[in-house]
């Protein structure tokens, strides 16, 4: 675990940027995660103090939303859409392919920190299902071969 106190100056400068903004907690958390990669535990008291909320409230919000991470992310994040439209075009077979090839469950992360799997429910790409998002980029009209090629590319720059 890295020394989280190193992140505090970043956290505090982001908090300053949102000072006076109403209901700022989500924007603050998004900004911290974007800059640091996750929400460090050490940031929670700082956030709570700056926004005049309790630490329990801040932790409650972090845990409620699927997007917020409390640990550093893997190098690659692959989010396969598992919603109805993609299921009707074979998303479950792609999910099985991912589990089989990476030996991970649907929420798993590889031990070497190279890739994390996350299900996502709709990327708005439903007219060209199935779809996934890899490191922020959406790929649609997926096939088993295309998925393999994307995974190969992730492995190569590991």
């Amino acid at each position, binding site marked *: 675990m890295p020394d989280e106190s190193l992140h505090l100056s970043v956290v505090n400068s982001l908090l300053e940027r949102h000072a006076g903004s*109403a*209901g*700022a*907690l*989500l*924007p603050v*958390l*998004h900004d911290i995660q974007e800059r640091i990669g996750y929400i460090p535990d050490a940031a929670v008291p700082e956030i709570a103090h700056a*926004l005049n*909320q309790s630490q329990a*409230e801040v932790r*409650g*919000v972090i845990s*409620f*939303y*699927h*997007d*917020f991470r409390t640990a550093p992310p893997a190098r690659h994040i692959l989010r396969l859409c598992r*919603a*109805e*439209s*993609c*299921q*009707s*075009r074979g998303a479950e077979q792609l999910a099985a392919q991912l589990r089989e090839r990476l030996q991970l469950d649907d929420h798993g992360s590889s031990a070497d920190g190279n890739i994390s799997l996350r299900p*996502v*429910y*709709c*990327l*708005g*790409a*439903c*007219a*060209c*299902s199935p*779809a996934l*998002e890899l490191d*922020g*980029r*959406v*790929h*649609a*009209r997926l096939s088993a071969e295309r998925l393999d090629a994307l995974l190969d590319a992730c492995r190569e720059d590991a």
Partner: protein
Amino acid sequence: MMPTLYLPADSLARAVGADEVSTALITQAKESNLPLELQRTSSRGLYWLEPLLEVDSPQGRLGFGPMTAADVPSVLEALQNPSSHHPLALGLVEQLPYLKTQQRLLFARAGITRPLSLDDYRAHGGFEGLKRAVELGGEQTATAVFDSGLRGRGGAAFPAGIKWRTVRGTPAAQKYIVCNADEGDSGTFADRMLMEGDPFLLIEGMAIAGLCVGATYGYIYVRSEYPDAVAVLRQAINLARQAGYLGANVGGSGLTFDMEVRVGAGAYICGEETALLDSLEGKRGYVRAKPPIPALKGLFGLPTLVHNVLTLASVPLILAKGAQFYRDYGMGRSLGTMPFQLAGNVRHGGLVERAFGLTLRELVEDYGGGTASGRPLKAAQVGGPLGAWVPPGQFDTPLDYEAFAAMGAMLGHGGVVVADDSLDMAHMARFALQFCAEESCGKCTPCRIGSTRGVEVIDRLLAAPDQSGRDEQAIILKDLCDTLQYGSLCALGGMTSYPVASALKHFPADFGLHASEAEQ
């Protein structure tokens, strides 16, 4: 002389290779020493043809699609030699039957204009609604919205004019406009298309709403799965502000209205308006009990007009062309047009904007061209994950709020997910309950506990060794659906019963049940 080329910058066009096509065009033009003018526009919504390259011609824009980077040299060559015919040539895009037969009011600019060009927007009727609203004043603006018959496009279909009058008539030092852009339903992408492709339309609609009801600030709450929409909207808001359409003197009215984009964090429940308000306040997305309604006590306890993207984006046109123009479209109490979205296992997936009243069969078979797999059609889920699975026997039902409600279904946000006979409806019913369990905010018991118990009941039903065991579990499941439907605080728990009960009713064999028992 090379004609101007147009290629969508829409995120789904990019997800199927539009950026690669763009790069290839630029590289190839440089190599061949061709002067290239390439505009990145919004998408027409004819997604099975994306990436769809369009080319100016004296008759109108010609289309080529679906393009790949490898097709670029031959297409450029075909353009130099107009008598040749390229295999991807589609002819005049606006004459394609899929597009020609649509009634595009809301998506009139789709595929034509550049999303962040104020000049393009104004050249195609932009800001005429705002101008008219400033001339009319608040009272008459609210009347126009009321008279148009516009109903909330997010799913609940509440008459918009009533909300506007309520917020306008509630005195407060501060009021808000909140745009619900947390479009999380599978099978829907109209909000995404509109925000990415025509952001000024939404901004104009919100500004009109702000001036009318006396709100000075607005929020667009966009789901985090739509990063392109967030980026486009933020740039568009800045451009609109610089041009005087937002700020201290909106469109020369002397009134103030400004807005910002807020990003969700992956919680489906935040598409429910009161959970969204809590989320905007920086809290967990918990559903609030109503009353008080948000129009009276909404964001930070103040009067708030909450509308879906498509509702707000319908307003500029209603003001510019008049309420009567708008209500001439549609049927019964479902007036105007609806952008239906064809998705899932369908040959021609895309956006179909038509007046209410066409049938589901016309939509799925005529526009959609049947299943993409070529296998027999099994059902279509209309209205997102909380919508019913409609069997082909009911496909002649007109797409109308009341007609769908009458058969225990709903139009919702207009998304249609098509499924072929390989999709197991017992699995989909289980998935609906599992999704509800995952996304429940936890405030009310039927949704929090019922969804988890429902998954267990389906598992027991499917594992039951004999018919009587399955029948027993089916009775429990139907009972649980009733509890969810009538006992939940909001639509998440309340309508999770729709996909479950409809799957059970129309596809009993998938559960190992006989038709007669499922009908009980």
